[in-house]
Every structure is written in structure tokens, then in C-alpha cells.
């Protein structure tokens, strides 16, 4: 009963606010129509970031701006408000929000992995949900709306933030005085995307970023195919996407790498996307610029770390500290580089922090005009609504903010937000300032009061004969209440009255009796007394390449270098040449011989050894994820989508003389993903690490990992045995062959990225690096390949290769193995360190690889182990980490040996390169020195100095009472094959 009464009360309240929709029946009165204008005069109107009109008049009717200008005439039937001394700005627009739409909560995971979709009639993957319509689950959230308005927002574009394809968003006006009938400006304003799985399904694929990226590509491709009538069955997801395909696309990405990745997907399918992210765009602004994308940038800067305990401080990396330090410089960097960007409250715990953080960005150089554009016209452009929202111009929605000064200034107050022509008071603009020192006489007792605090929320300190009393002041607009506790007066004294100062006097009354009393002001409020923390404009640490510890202030560049008098390990028929010079020019080896003279840098290599850079055929460093285990075949995923150019493994590998590595997918499934073959160009972005014209590779895997022997996965994924593994390959290759046949026949077909990739293998255009252990499966793989007419390129691990080395030689497959690993699982029980030697002698091209970030940086030592185990000659041993892996990677024409014409990827060693005590002194890639042991000493100093500087800054933060966080980022994990 009570509830019902409440509901009625609320409803009545609502009715009062809501403008009657004129075709609705009206039974509680008579239908009246309002034909009035709203006119605002004498304002400084910022029509947009560039056009300002002083002393302007704005005429509004029915929520629309009719005219703006100096001395505008306006009709008689107008309500006129003077905004003298006030500024008017377009209300802000947040283009990336989930306002009023609850995010679904996670599904609990069953005992078995779920491979199939939970839905019928939709896309085959549950994480693709373009049919979601944000507006369907929208409930106007008045409390959040109030906060957003207080931050200056009049419009938000909201969506259901769940899944890879998230469906349509809706543009909502944050208008309290209307219903969804009017405040929903557009129920379908944009389509949203991300690379994050849906919470509404436990379907296993995609389980990684590269899986999500691949799925997104396949989805866009499928949508095109569906639109052309390719499907025989209904797919409501694809239908929904196609129906809305002309809507703006907004892609929630993340950091700079993710932005580039998202843009790449957009480019492939000619989709113009606005990309949410790029909080670290300043790290490589040219890279952002190249995308040509409009960014939607969050301003949720990290909180400073609490480093007061040195132990905790030791867990915080320089990279994390720099992220904190540099974050506020991001928007300025975007501004300077003229990258179009919007600003969003996305990621902020409280929208109220937006203004503070934008102001902070201004301290580091963001211009006011760009800040305003980023909150008004740019979001309007993104939404394709540039002619309707984001400016104060005739024909635009009457969404504007009234302030008492320039909107971004610290002391400016936002007074009102007019949304669709309806006022929302944030801070009343005609509030009298009653703060100051007062005396009050009550019943022959004198009190002293100091009223301070803010205009709207005054505070009060009261004393009687210098004794402090408990006192409280409250203000509700123009009305104020004052309470003081005095035992002698019988306890609480209560006063109230208009908060109006007339001749230094505030008239109050008390409900104790009817005596009028007065507060007499003895001194006005002194704003200077207000305690303001000194503004902190911290020094920004310069960006390095990469922007982590040991990054370079300038990217290394190719030089002309002459190595004099070295012992040169050619890894060629020429063998080891003593007292030999090697000349490097334009990134290439141009001359090898004695007594070479040349212009350029000369490095005395007397007593030192010069070798080709080491090549690691099997590595998982510099990756953001390694396995897409969501399906038993994931040929469509690309490791190049998850290369982490800031990973310290790159620098450490350089320090171990490694210049090239194949970053392989893991071994979670029989058919893994496409490799990224990189050079260790420390400081270059991910896309520049990857070889130009890279040979194409893919990871396959056999044995315990793919049959999920060593972890509990529910056992419902085929294969669970080596027998099944064969059948997976046979099936996929057969399908790929049939797919290819259809294509070749010119018949219509659904582009299937997975089949395309497998087709490349069948045609000999893509090579398999196959994780393998026992002889039965090794043999099987070769037979499957032979059946389908191709060769397996390389068996990696291949620990029982020595048992079938003759068959391997006959098939023509290479072996890339460990120096001496074994005993870590059942399938390596017969692994022997003599494996490399036996295979090599049987005619197999053998490489020694690492599969391990630690071992990778000591591959010279691992090669040396083949001398001990099996008696390889030193030259042959050395080839196993240079020219042999180059051959296995089809890179032997470019790298892997010291030969005229090859890339100058060189390592200068302090001693015999396979001596356990040898150190790489200089590591060069394409003529540029990427590691130098002497320079490393300087970098150590740089790390220490920058850490110290940032620790000082963060201690300042804490000791000046600003918030800090007492935790560290998680220690980065080093990946192996079976890291999930």
C-alpha cells in the first residue's frame, strides 16, 4: 500500500515535469500549448571553439536555437534572461558512455570448456553481438545524469559495453525535465566494438587478443558475404550489423598498440572508425597520426604510487612510474600533432574529475580551444551530427552551459546547463556571498562567527569569549540556517533567515522567541585565506624509445662502421677468418677482408670475435599473449597482432647477441596461429619490428599439450589422443583443399581466414613450424603433409628427432631443438642432448632454439652444448644459432651469416662466442647499434636517475595529501609454449 502511494507520488511528480506529448489523451486537465520564446541576452557566447560573440543574444524555442548574434531581435512572447557577465558554451558531449545501461555480470564457468555458442539463429560466436540494442536496456539514471551535468555534459552516447560487436548505442540528452520520449535523441546513434569478450557467454573462443582480432576480421568479412546473400541460414547478428552498417563505428581499443590494431581492422574493411583509447599516444605521436583515425581519449590518469616504503617501490617499474608522470601530457601531444580527438569520461570513477584532468592537460600545453572542440564539435562529428549538436548556432539543439568565466578556468563556476531548452541549475548564479567575520548578540551574550566554506556550502566557526562552540551553517539557495550550541542558553540555539547581506547585516529570526536578531559583518571574506594546495606542475620525464627502462632518447640509426681486425665467424663456407675487417654501410655488409679502409666509425675488434646475429627459431618474448586455445584450430590468428615492442625480453636478447626471433603461437592446439618474425629493433613500434616481406609461418603442435594432458580442461575438446591429432590435420587440410577448389572454380564462397591460411600451406606459400616430441607423431605429421603434397618446414622441440632423423632428412624437414632440456613431462622422457648432433649428421638442418626468455639470451652457450654432447665442430655448432635457423625461416638470403650483401646484423663478442664467459659487447641490426655494453652502463644510470626523480615526485604527491595507490603492477610473466 505504502509502495503504491509512493509510486503515485513519483508519477505525479513526473507528470509535472514531462512536457505533454500533444497527441496523448489528457484526462487530468485541459491540453494547453506553449508558444513562447526563451531569450538570453548580454552573454559572451562561445558558439564553438573558434567563434565567440560578445554581448550576444540567444533565442530559443521548442528546445532549438533560433538565432544567435549581437542585438538579435526577438518576438514579444519571450521570457528574457540577462546573462550579463556570463559565458555560454555548447554543452559537452560524451561520445563513449554506458550511461543508464547496466553491464551484464559474468557467467560462471562450467567444469567443461564451452566451445559452441549458446544461441541459435545468431552469429556462430557469442561474443559477436551486433544485434544488441543499447536503448532496449536503457533506464534513465538521474543520479549519474546529475553528476554528468555538473561536469558540463548535456549529451551522452551510451551503449551496452559487452562483447566484441556490441550493437547500437543511443544518444541521450541529460534532461531532467523530459521523458525518454524526448531525451532519447537517437535510439540508434552508432555501432560499438571492442576486443573484449562478452560477459554473457563462456564460449571459449576467443581467449586472447589475437583471437579477438581475428574474429573481428572474420565477422566484418562474414557481414559482407551475408549482405551478398551468401548464407542459406538466418543470422540475426549479421543482419543487424548490415542493417546498421552506415552508423558511425566506435571501437573501444585501449593503449596505442590497440589503437593501431583497431585502425588496421577498420582499414581492411574500409570502415571509418572512431577509436577509444590512446592514453599513451604521446609515446609515438607519428604512429597515431598515421592511422588517420579520430580518437576518443579517456583522461583517467593513473594515481601516483605510494613509494614511501622502499620495498614496495622496488616493485614498481620505471615504466609504470613514467606512465603516471607522462599521462597528463597526452592531450597536449595530440593537440600539437593535430590529431583529431574527443575526450570521454570513460574510465573515470567520477565524471567530476573530467574538468580537473582536462585542466591538468592544459598545464602541460593542451589549448582551450582544442579542449572545447574535443568535448563538443569532435564528438558531434564522430556521431555524424555536426549540424545539430555541439555548437551554439541556429538550428542546433539548445544545449548550452552558462558559466561565470572561461569554462576551463579553475575559478569558473558552472551555473546552469540548458538542455533541449530546459534549465538545469548546477550552482545558482545569483547566490549572494555571505562569507565573512560576524558578531551576533543573543540574549545579552556576544558571539563571534566566521563564515567560510563555499558559496553554497558555508562552514561556520563560532566562539564565545574565545571559547569555541559547536556550530553549523546550512544554506539552501537563498535561505540559510544557523545552529550553535551553548549550555548557558539551554543548548542548541536555532536561527534562520534570508541569506542576504544588506549593509553588512544579515537579518535572522530565532524560533526560541520572536526577537529578530542580526549577524553583523565585521570583515568580508578573504579569499586568500582559503587554503589551496599549491598547484603541482611536475616535470615530465622525456619519452624514450621504447618508453620504458633502458629506452633510447633517440632511435638508433644505421651508420657506416668498420670492424677492424676481428676473428670473423662467417657461418659460411669461408669458415672462421682471423684478423679480418668487416665494413658495414647503409645497413648492409659491404666488404669483408684484410686492411679495409673506409670513412665512418672504426671499431677496433682486435682480440674480439664478430659473428652474425643469433636467430632464435622459437621464442615467445615480446608478446602480449601467446595462446589462442579457444578452438582446436586457430590458423586465422596472427602473432603480429600482439607484438609487444616494449618487452624487456628484446633488450635482454640483444644483450645476448640475438637479432632475430620467430615469435610463435603457443602449443595449446594442433593448429596454432601465424608467427611474427621480428628483428630486435629496440625502440621501434611493433609493426617495424616485424620483417618486411616476412616469410609466412604458422605454428602447429602435437602431443601432450594439444591433447590437454597436463591440465584439467574437462576433456571435451577433440583431440584427446595422438590418434585424434592426426585426424584434426587431415580434416582441416581436406577442407582447405575443397575450399581452394571452390575458389579456383570461381564459385561463390564465404571468405574464411582460417581456410585461406591453410590453403597457403598447401600451396607452399606458408611454412609450418611444428611443436613435436615423440617419434610416432613426428612421423605422422610428415605423412599427413606428404598426403597433401607439401613439406613440413621445421619440427620445433623435436626431442625424439634423433629416432627418425633419416625419415626427416628424406622428407626435407628441419629440426629446431633444445640444447639439453628434458624430464619436464612424459613425452620428453627420451629427450637427449645428443639430438642435435644425430639429426645434423643424418642430413637434417638443425637449429638450437630457446622457447624461453632466459635461454634465448644465452643461445651461444646452448649452441656450445652441442660440442659437448655429440662432438659437433665449433663451426657447425655456431651455425645452429645463425645460418641454420635462417634457413629454417627462409631468411638465409638476408641474415644468418657474414656475407657481402646481407643485412648487417652483427654481434661483437668479448671472446670466443661459444665460451661460457663471452659477452656480447655490441649488437647491430641493419647497421644500427641496438645494444652496446658501454651504453648500457649509461642506461643503468638513466634508469636510476629517472626512478629517483619520479620517486621524489610521488613522495611529494603523498606528502602533500594527494591520493596515492599502494600496490604495484603485476610482474610481467614470461611466456612458454604452454602458457595459456
Amino acid at each position, binding site marked *: 500500500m505504502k509502495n503504491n502511494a509512493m509510486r503515485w507520488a513519483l508519477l505525479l511528480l513526473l507528470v509535472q515535469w514531462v512536457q505533454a506529448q500533444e497527441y496523448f489523451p489528457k484526462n487530468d486537465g485541459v491540453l494547453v500549448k506553449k508558444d513562447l520564446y526563451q531569450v538570453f541576452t548580454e552573454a559572451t557566447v562561445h558558439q564553438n571553439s573558434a567563434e565567440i560573440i560578445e554581448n550576444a543574444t540567444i533565442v530559443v524555442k521548442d528546445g532549438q536555437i533560433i538565432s544567435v548574434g549581437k542585438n538579435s531581435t526577438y518576438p514579444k512572447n519571450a521570457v528574457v534572461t540577462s546573462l550579463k557577465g556570463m559565458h555560454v558554451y555548447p554543452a559537452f558531449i560524451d561520445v563513449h558512455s554506458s550511461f543508464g545501461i547496466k553491464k551484464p555480470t559474468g557467467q560462471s564457468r562450467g567444469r567443461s570448456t564451452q566451445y559452441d555458442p549458446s544461441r541459435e539463429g545468431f552469429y556462430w560466436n557469442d561474443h559477436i553481438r551486433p544485434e544488441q540494442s543499447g536503448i532496449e536496456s536503457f533506464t534513465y539514471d538521474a543520479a549519474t545524469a546529475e553528476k554528468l551535468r555538473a561536469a558540463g555534459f548535456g549529451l551522452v552516447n551510451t551503449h551496452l559495453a559487452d562483447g566484441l560487436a556490441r550493437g547500437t548505442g543511443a544518444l541521450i540528452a541529460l534532461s531532467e525535465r523530459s521523458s525518454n520520449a524526448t531525451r532519447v535523441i537517437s535510439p540508434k546513434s552508432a555501432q560499438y566494438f571492442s576486443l573484449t569478450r562478452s560477459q554473457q557467454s563462456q564460449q571459449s573462443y576467443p581467449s586472447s587478443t589475437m583471437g579477438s582480432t581475428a574474429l573481428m576480421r572474420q565477422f566484418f568479412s562474414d557481414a559482407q558475404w551475408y549482405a551478398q546473400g551468401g548464407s542459406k541460414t538466418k543470422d540475426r547478428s549479421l543482419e543487424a550489423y548490415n542493417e546498421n552498417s552506415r552508423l558511425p563505428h566506435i571501437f573501444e581499443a585501449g593503449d596505442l598498440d590497440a589503437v593501431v590494431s583497431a585502425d588496421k581492422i577498420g582499414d581492411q574493411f574500409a570502415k571509418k572508425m572512431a577509436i577509444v583509447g590512446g592514453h599513451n599516444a604521446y609515446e609515438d605521436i607519428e604512429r597515431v597520426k598515421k592511422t588517420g583515425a579520430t580518437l576518443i581519449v579517456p583522461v583517467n590518469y593513473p594515481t601516483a604510487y605510494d613509494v614511501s616504503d622502499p620495498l614496495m617501490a622496488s616493485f614498481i617499474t620505471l615504466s609504470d612510474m613514467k606512465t603516471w608522470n607522462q599521462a597528463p601530457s597526452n592531450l597536449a601531444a595530440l593537440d600539437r600533432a593535430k590529431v583529431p580527438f574527443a575526450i570521454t569520461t570513460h574510465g573515470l570513477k567520477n565524471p567530476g574529475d573530467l574538468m580537473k584532468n582536462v585542466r591538468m592537460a592544459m598545464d602541460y600545453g593542451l589549448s582551450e580551444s582544442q579542449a572545447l572542440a574535443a568535448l563538443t564539435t569532435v564528438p558531434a562529428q564522430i556521431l555524424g551530427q555536426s549540424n545539430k549538436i555541439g555548437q551554439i548556432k541556429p538550428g542546433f539543439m539548445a544545449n548550452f552551459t552558462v558559466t561565470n568565466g572561461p569554462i576551463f578556468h579553475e575559478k569558473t563556476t558552472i551555473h546552469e546547463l540548458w538542455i533541449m531548452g530546459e534549465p538545469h541549475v548546477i550552482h545558482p548564479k545569483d547566490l549572494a556571498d555571505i562569507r565573512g567575520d560576524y558578531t551576533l548578540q543573543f540574549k545579552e551574550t556576544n558571539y563571534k562567527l566566521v563564515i567560510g566554506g563555499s558559496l553554497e556550502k558555508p562552514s561556520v566557526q563560532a566562539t564565545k569569549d574565545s571559547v569555541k562552540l559547536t556550530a553549523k551553517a546550512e544554506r539552501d539557495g537563498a535561505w540559510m540556517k544557523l545552529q550553535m550550541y551553548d549550555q548557558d542558553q539551554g543548548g542548541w540555539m536555532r536561527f534562520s533567515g534570508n541569506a542576504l547581506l544588506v549593509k553588512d547585516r544579515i537579518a535572522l529570526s530565532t524560533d526560541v522567541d520572536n526577537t529578530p536578531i542580526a549577524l553583523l559583518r565585521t570583515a568580508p571574506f578573504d579569499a586568500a585565506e582559503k587554503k589551496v594546495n599549491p598547484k603541482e606542475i611536475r616535470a615530465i620525464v622525456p619519452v624514450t624509445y621504447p618508453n620504458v627502462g633502458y629506452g633510447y632518447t633517440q632511435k638508433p640509426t644505421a651508420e657506416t662502421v668498420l670492424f677492424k681486425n676481428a676473428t670473423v665467424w662467417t657461418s659460411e663456407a669461408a669458415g672462421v677468418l682471423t684478423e679480418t675487417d668487416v665494413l658495414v654501410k647503409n645497413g648492409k655488409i659491404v666488404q669483408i677482408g684484410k686492411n679495409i679502409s673506409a670513412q665512418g666509425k672504426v671499431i677496433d675488434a682486435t682480440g674480439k670475435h664478430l659473428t652474425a646475429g643469433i636467430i632464435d627459431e622459437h621464442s615467445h618474448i615480446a608478446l602480449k599473449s601467446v595462446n589462442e586455445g579457444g578452438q582446436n584450430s586457430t590458423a586465422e590468428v596472427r602473432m603480429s597482432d600482439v607484438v609487444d615492442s616494449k618487452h624487456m625480453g628484446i633488450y635482454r636478447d640483444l644483450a645476448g647477441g640475438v637479432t632475430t626471433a620467430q615469435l610463435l603461437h603457443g602449443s595449446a592446439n594442433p593448429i596454432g596461429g601465424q608467427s611474427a618474425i621480428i628483428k630486435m629493433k629496440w625502440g621501434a613500434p611493433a609493426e617495424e619490428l616485424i620483417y618486411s616481406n616476412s616469410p609466412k609461418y604458422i605454428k602447429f603442435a602435437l602431443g601432450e599439450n594439444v591433447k590437454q594432458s597436463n591440465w584439467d580442461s574437462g576433456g571435451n575438446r577433440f583431440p584427446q589422443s595422438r590418434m585424434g591429432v592426426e585426424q584434426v590435420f587431415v580434416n582441416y587440410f581436406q577442407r582447405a583443399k575443397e575450399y581452394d577448389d571452390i575458389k579456383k572454380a570461381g564459385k561463390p564462397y564465404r571468405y574464411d581466414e582460417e581456410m585461406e591460411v591453410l590453403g597457403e600451406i598447401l600451396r607452399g606459400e606458408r611454412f609450418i613450424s611444428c611443436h613435436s616430441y615423440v617419434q610416432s607423431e613426428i612421423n605422422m605429421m610428415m605423412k599427413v603433409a606428404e598426403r597433401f603434397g607439401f613439406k613440413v618446414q621445421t619440427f620445433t622441440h623435436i626431442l625424439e628427432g634423433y629416432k627418425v632423423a633419416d625419415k626427416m632428412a628424406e622428407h626435407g624437414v628441419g629440426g629446431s631443438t633444445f640444447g639439453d632440456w628434458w624430464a619436464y*613431462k612424459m613425452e620428453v622422457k627420451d629427450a637427449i642432448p*645428443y639430438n642435435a648432433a644425430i639429426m645434423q649428421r643424418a642430413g637434417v638442418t638443425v637449429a638450437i632454439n630457446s622457447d624461453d626468455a632466459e635461454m634465448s639470451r644465452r643461445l651461444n652457450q646452448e649452441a656450445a652444448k652441442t660440442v659437448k654432447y655429440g662432438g659437433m665442430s665449433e663451426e657447425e655448432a655456431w651455425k645452429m644459432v645463425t645460418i641454420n635457423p635462417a634457413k629454417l625461416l627462409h631468411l638465409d638470403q638476408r641474415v644468418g651469416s657474414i656475407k657481402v650483401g646481407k643485412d648487417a646484423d652483427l654481434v661483437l663478442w668479448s671472446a670466443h662466442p661459444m665460451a661460457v664467459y663471452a659477452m656480447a659487447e655490441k649488437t647491430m641490426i641493419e647497421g644500427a647499434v641496438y645494444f652496446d655494453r658501454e651504453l648500457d652502463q649509461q642506461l643503468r644510470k638513466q634508469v636510476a636517475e629517472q626512478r629517483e626523480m619520479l620517486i621524489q615526485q610521488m613522495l611529494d604527491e603523498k606528502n602533500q595529501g594527494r591520493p596515492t595507490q599502494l600496490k604495484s603492477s603485476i610482474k610481467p610473466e614470461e611466456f612458454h609454449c604452454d602458457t595459456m
Partner: protein
Amino acid sequence: MKKTNLLALLGALTAMSWSATAQQTPAPKQTEAISIVGATAHLGNGQVIQQATLVFDQGQIIALGGPETPTQGQVISASGKHIYPGFITMGTSLGLIEVDAVKATDDQGDIGDMIPHVRSIIAYDAESKVVESMRPNGVLLAQVSPKGGMISGSSSVVQLDAWNWEDAAVKTDEGIHMSWPNPISQGRWWMGEDPGMKPNKNYSLQVDRLLQFIEEAKAYHQGGSATRNEPYEALKDLLAGEDAAYVAADSERQIIDAVQKLKAAGIQKVVIVGGREAYKVIPMLLENQVPVITQATHQLPFDADSDYDMPFKLPKILSDGGLVVAMHNMNEANHQNRNLPFYAGQLVGQGMNPEEALRVITQYPAKILGIDQSYGTLEVGKSATLFISQGDALDMRTNQIEHAFIDGRKISLETHQTELYQRYSGKYNQ
């Protein structure tokens, strides 16, 4: 029976049937004197004798000197070759774990927080194939250690050529292994917590619990207890100053707390295991005569900002500071223990004198283990546990072991792996 149980059982059976195949037969006792002549003898105490003659009989070195030293019995000419004391690997799971991924073969830890009474020695599989693979690299002695919990149990020292664990034992229950509580803890992300590192609120509590356990054991050993308490019994030698406490501690704070609090509790022999930040507290460790067993050099630096070669040089820094240092690689699969000589070789690359680097895997571990009166160095009167290498045994290329002796017994250098090598080399030579 549940399917998973069946699978586990099957796995166990497979593992058992595999480990039941033939191992190398342990060598019989030395029956005649053996003299090695002409080699460079690396004594393990920092000294070298060129053109050395080393004579041993009945398991003991009876003469050691230059070429003038008279030989006895069988003479092995080792001109241009090198003699080393058998290397000693620390904190291993050798003989306790056979195949990492197969739980049935893993006996390294048990459940419970304070279980000093569990003894690694009785689970030691002398016939392990991993164990035999140590010998061809010169690793002849090992500390076999339990792992897990706060007090994990007791370790023993074994020689790596034996019929069973009793034969293998060189020194049983020589130390108690502990993990010092960590003042930093990682968020339990699987329970929805932030995965970052943060201060461990229970650190003091956990330290107190450990110390209280020790105090209780002390009270127990004062007598008067009506019942026998095995965990307290197990601490008897530790409290008497005979056994060592091997305490895993990495950060400066852990190391300081562990040393000071355990010393204050009356534990005389404290050994720090890990000691990642031990270089920050060298004077304190010196003052308290605390040795450090660092992680083996073949590790990644702890964090992104560390020197890339920090793990390569940590033992050197500590040794240069005057500490007794050894290495362990208990965080890696135990087959890696055969790389012990190369871990020491890495130190040479960091500028450490090769003979000093050698001490880190010979004399120092022997000292820490309290077996230095017999093992760890080549000296008259000590055990003839040694080997001959063609070249520098700390370098991968030249670590070529020709003969190895444990207590004078000439041990086999064949292994499961060398047999497969021979078999399959033969296959292609047919």
C-alpha cells in the same frame, strides 16, 4: 572409479614401468690405489697445481702434489687435462621428482605449514634417470631438499651413485628448510582481487607464528613433556646448533628479519636461500656469518629495471664481499642441475677468477653442508670424489668428463641418454 582417477593411476603405472628399466650399476668399492698424473688440479679452494699427481686409495686422497709426487697402483695419464673435486648442487629435487608434469612422480613436498619432521632422504630415488644424468657433467653430490609450507622438512646430502637412499646418504637430515614470510603479497586474482603486489598485512603475524613454533620446540626440548612430538623432535639438532636452517628469503627486509630473528631465537646456523637483495646487506650477513645460496646465474633479472646481467653477477658480488656463496636452481626443472658447472662459468664471464668461481660449486657448498672435512676440495685425507675433464669443466665445450670417482669408486658415466645416443648413432651407421 572416476575417469580422472583411472587416468591418474594409468599415468602412475606408466611412470613406474618406465623408471623400472635398467639404470647404471653403482660402482664397487675401490680395490687398488689410483694415481692421476700430469693434469692441472683445481683444488676447489682457490688453488691450482699444474702437472699434478693425485693418488687415492680406499676412497681417500693419499697424495697430492707436483710431478715429483710418487704414484701408486693404477696410473691414469691425464696430461693436458684437468682434475676437479666433484661438484655439489644445492637445494635440489633430484630423486624426488622424476617427471615434472606427472604428479605421481613428484615427492618434493607435503601438505602442512610446519612439517620439519618430513625427511627428503627416504623418498630419494637413487635409481632416477635424472640423477644419473648429473654425473657426466661432474656433478657428483647433491643436497636433496623438501619444498613447500613455512617449514618444509629436512634435507640430506647424497652422492649420486648408489643402490638406494641409505647407500647414497652422505649426511642425513643436515638442515631444516623454511620459507620466510613475504612482506609483499600478490593479489589473489582468481578470487577477483587486483593481481598487483601489495604489502602483506599478515607478515608480522606469520613471522610470529614461525618464531612461536621454534619457541615451543625449545620448551619441548627442555623436557617434561609427557608425549612425543615429532615436529619438535625434528628441530632438535637445529636448536643444538648442529643443523642449519635453510631460509628462503629474497628481499632485504626478509633477509634482515630472517637472520636477526632466527639468531635471536637461538638458531646458530642460518643459511639464506635466494638472497636476491643480499648484496644490500653484506656487512650484516658477514657479521652473522650467514652464507647465501643464490639462484643459479642462468635466470632472468627479477624486474624490468634490473641490470640485464644481475643474475649473472650476484654470486660474484656476494663472494667479493667476503660471503660464503653457493647456488641453487630449485625454481627450475631438476634436470638443469647438470648445468651447475656452467652457472659457475658464467661468473667467470663477470670477471670472477675461475678458481674462485669453482669454489662456489665445491668448497663453499661443502662448507655450508658441513661436509667440508671430506668433500668439496682436493686435499690429502679427503674423499676421492673427483673427476677428470678434457678441458675447462666450467665451459660447455670443454666439460668432457673422462673419469669420475665417488669415494674412490670409479663410477659409470653412461646414462639412459648416452645409451640412446649410442643406439641411434648406431642405427644410422648400419
